[in-house]
């Protein structure tokens, strides 16, 4: 499995992914083996069914949205590049990266990009706002079926009321950032990929 995986993944590709996402060589190889283990069809891409086969993801309230986040707009297959690009958002922020020169484009795992990723999971219609309905959907997924609509509605209303600053009754990305400024996003949205 290991040798077969590495022959399928060329060195140039690894270099490119490294540059784009910032992962290290060993991390990329390890994730590639995970990729291939998920890829039952063995065609080098993952489909939605491949993801749904992961058991824990099925019971995750946000499972579907997470799966969708991997697939680019309108497509049904994701290759390894896309897989890594999505996972790169969750790489821990390193200290030396904090001092990079500001003219270079922001790495995928910067705080803003992490938050943007989360924001996009709320905002399904991509209108750059989390509307009350979108919020309600997420709340419904998280609390289950026993809570009444009205109650969820009041929670959603209160949430929007707290966050909304320009009065448009929805949460824009900037308002989202502001609300989460006290939360340690760098730690919360990072996964320690073992070396």
């Amino acid at each position, binding site marked *: 499995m290991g040798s077969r995986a590495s022959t399928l993944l060329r060195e140039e590709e690894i270099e490119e992914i490294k540059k784009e996402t910032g992962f290290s060589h060993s991390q990329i190889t390890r994730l590639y083996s*995970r990729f291939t283990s998920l890829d039952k069809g063995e065609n080098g891409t993952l489909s939605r069914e491949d993801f749904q086969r992961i058991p*824990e993801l099925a019971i995750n309230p946000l499972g579907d949205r997470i799966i969708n986040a991997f697939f680019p707009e309108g497509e049904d297959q994701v290759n390894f590049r896309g897989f890594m690009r999505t*996972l790169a958002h969750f790489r821990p922020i390193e200290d030396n990266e904090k001092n990079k020169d500001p003219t270079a484009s922001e790495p995928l795992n910067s705080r803003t990009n992490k938050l943007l990723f989360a924001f996009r999971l709320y905002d399904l219609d991509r209108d750059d706002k989390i509307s009350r309905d979108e919020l309600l959907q997420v709340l419904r997924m998280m609390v289950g079926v026993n809570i009444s609509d009205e109650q969820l509605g009041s929670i959603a209303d209160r949430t929007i009321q707290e966050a909304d600053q320009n009065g448009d009754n929805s949460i824009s990305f900037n308002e989202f950032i502001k609300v989460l400024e*006290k939360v340690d996003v760098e730690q919360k949205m990072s996964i320690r990929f073992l070396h």
Partner: protein
Amino acid sequence: MAELLGSSSVRSGRASFCLRVVGFVLLLVFAAAASASRDISNGTSKEPNPAREEDPHHRSNTTHHKKAFPVLSFNYEHVRTPFEISLWILLALLMKLGFHIIPRLSHVVPESCLLIFVGLLVGGIIKAIGEKPPILDSTLFFLYLLPPIILDAGYFLPIRPFTENLGTILVFAVVGTLWNAFFIGGMMYAVCQIEGTGLGGVDLLSCLLFGAIISAVDPVAVLAMFEEIHINELLHILVFGESLLNDAVTVVLYHLFEEFAHIGTVTVADAFLGVVCFFVVSLGGILVGAIYGILGAFTSRFTSHTRVIEPLFVFLYSYMAYLSAEVFHLSGIMSLIACGVMMRPYVEANISHKSYTTIKYFLKMWSSVSETLIFIFLGVSTVAGPHSWNWTFVVLTVILCFVSRMLGVVGLTYIINKFRIVKLTKKEQFIVAYGGLRGAIAFSLGFLLTNDKMKDMFLTAIITVIFFTVFVQGMTIKPLVDLLAVKKKKESKRSINEEIHTQFLDHLLTGIEDVCGHYGHHHWKDKLNRFNKAYVKKWLIAGERSTEPQLISFYNKLEMKQAIMLVESGSAAKLPSTLSSVSMQNIQPRAQPRGRIIPRISKGREEEIRKLLRANLQKTRQRLRSYSRHDLMIDPFEDNMSEVRFRKQRVEMERRMSHYLTVPANRQEAPPVRKVYLADDGDSRAVSGRRATQPNLSSPDAVSLLDESSQRANQRSPDPPRRGPELQESQEEQDQLKLSRCLSDPGPNKDGDEDKNKGFIP
């Protein structure tokens, strides 16, 4: 001229007040000292006493009233012990009070220093009188003074940062303490071997024992200090968590070395047993605590009818956990922490709001008293204890403690940072190292030593180290924190947004971890949550709340807090229309359809209403104080603010500002919230014409009552609702229902005292 006089009089007023306080305190001190002395004198004269007491009796019998009947007699022996204890505690608390009155002192000097200083003073005074000052008895300390502090810390331990940093905390606690102990012990031994210091008699094991005692960071001192500097959560939990968890290490090392110090030699088997002992002590302690915690949670499930004793369960189960662990020489502190942590989420879901408040304030109160007493006794013991001052030993100890702590923290952080997502910066490392204070635990452990030869020297050194850390490090850490610009604690409360998004991110991260096939922190946390929800909650939480998602309970708590805050500030803040308690529908399936929101009344009228209510509320609060053992406050009233009715009544209300409006609000169905009175003396027409089937709130002022809502502990015969028109304010009603539910008022009690209505107003 006038201003000068005025200001001087103010100043002299304050000065004279201070003088009076000080004078009073000194008086108390003398009384305490005198009682101590009387103790001695009484002790010696105990023998003749009974004889003496018999004599008057005898005499009176034989001589027929030669001695007059004693109108006023003096029998101090009878109350001596509780009297002296109370006197000490009172003295301690007055001292604490005094510090905060003197304005500038409490900013510069941390409270712990001041208290030790007072202890020194008191000890000095007692010694000057010629009596023997009391010493911090180890039994007293470990069994009575320490548990409240630890319970307070453990019960309110912020779980999230604790578990997130658990690895780091454990490394500091276990490895760090071991390093400290061996480094200090080893270096001391090496120095003792040097000729000319006069310390040749100290052997290796004694040195190691001393190292073990002095190496542990003390939770009491850390708590006392960190409370005042408001440092950010991460550092606080690191140092504090370390101070709690190193108890296991300290216990094991202490017993280990003490045993070996008697035997004299250590074999490899013994060292291995020591390691096993460590695991047994820590895990056993946690297990004992967890068992008691579960028991406590289970018990709290059934307390819905006896709300008054709920807090006692929490306290007693925790204390039993501590004592049980101490029986087996397990780590009592870890047991207490485990008990509190285990119990808390379930107990809080079960108990009423008032019990929660009671628990919180009792814990804070007890731990505050304990802390104060500990520091004062430390001061007194310093004056009292036999000292054997050896320059080399003491100075060396102080230096070594500091150095080993610094080295230990820096070295360990270097290793830990490889595994942490958010690394610890140099500044943070420094604060962690600098915040390693020693305190009363070290002193008590030293006091328990039996070897007299070394004991005095050890005690002196321990006290010196404690003084050094508390005074020097305690006083300078605040300016250092400011100087290094370390992040301070973020003062804000958690908003609903943060809660929702945090949960969202948790799910997201769990999902991503699953995609990667990486079984990390989130994965296990999610599994634990699922297990908790599926099995544990059903057993330990009463009623429907066992299925309530965390988000909902958080939201309810938030709403209630806001409501209470609104009332307390008496502000004209708009009551948000989202303040609906539709959650009540959860447990009342028969809830009638609610759709209407509060009809808007004009700002001016709103102001009038508020003014009226506030005036009446305050007066009512003063009047209505009826207590019985079983139920708590019967609270004043409830505003029945249907707009229509109010328009009608406004005129009368304004005329009757001095009277009280009471109207009974009866609830037919399930949890009746509380009794609501809106007494209206003269307006009986309105009263009788009213049929209040649901309680109502339409203004924030009325919400205040929930704060004082009574809890019917038991039997009140249900009263049929007699009057009141159907009230239209569905919104507030829901509100109140929800709020009442949040107060977890018990079920079947109905509002009794309808009869009290008329004769209510004195």
